[in-house]
């Protein structure tokens, strides 16, 4: 089975990720998932592609830590995080985060916490590639 935390160029299947998540426990009653995808429109400009740069070893370690912290903090049964690198096109998947718990509230809270934390602390940078040029995304504070 694939690792629970991955950085990868290729796309992923949600059905497969959820199957893997669920395999960890039959007590899982609620699974919350966040799926980030590439929009074709950002701040008024058309975006054709999004490119990623990452400090890979640290990004992977931070994601592993994020997952472990979420499991501990929200008493999850399991969690998974997949982030794509390379270049993706408008409409493509970028990030998949799933939290599984016995009940829905901790799953939903953990999912939100993980995507918020990921956007704060995982060393990955996103570049929007438009018909007229490219520019790094400036995160909103």
């Amino acid at each position, binding site marked *: 089975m694939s690792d629970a935390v991955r950085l990868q160029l290729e796309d992923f299947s949600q059905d497969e990720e959820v199957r893997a998540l669920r395999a960890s426990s039959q007590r899982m009653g609620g699974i919350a998932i966040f799926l980030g995808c590439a929009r074709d429109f950002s701040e008024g400009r058309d975006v054709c592609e999004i490119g990623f*740069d990452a400090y890979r070893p640290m990004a992977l370690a931070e994601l592993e830590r994020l997952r472990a912290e979420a499991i501990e903090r929200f008493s999850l049964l399991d969690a998974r995080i997949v982030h794509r690198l390379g270049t993706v096109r408008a409409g493509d998947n970028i990030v998949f985060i799933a939290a599984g718990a016995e009940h829905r509230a901790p799953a939903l809270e953990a999912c939100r916490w993980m*995507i918020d934390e990921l956007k704060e602390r*995982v*060393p990955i940078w996103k570049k929007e590639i438009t018909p007229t040029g490219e520019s*790094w995304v*400036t995160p909103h504070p």
Partner: protein
Amino acid sequence: MIKVLFFGPVADRVGLRQIEVPFRDGLCWQDVRDVLQPQYPEAFALVSVTAVNGERVRDDGHTPLADGAEIVFMSRVSGG
């Protein structure tokens, strides 16, 4: 030798992804920054976090580095 890596917008402004800085006893990451910042002021204007050996630094920049250390001067991340 100390390895300094750049990613994303910082790498674009430096024009390089990696620089090597000679090691000397007692060298700290703040010393490395003090050397590089005047050479790449536009890149360092973006820097908000420093990592040493893959860990975000929490010291004041005056802990001595080991030879072979890897430093990354990072702008705010924008993944996800």
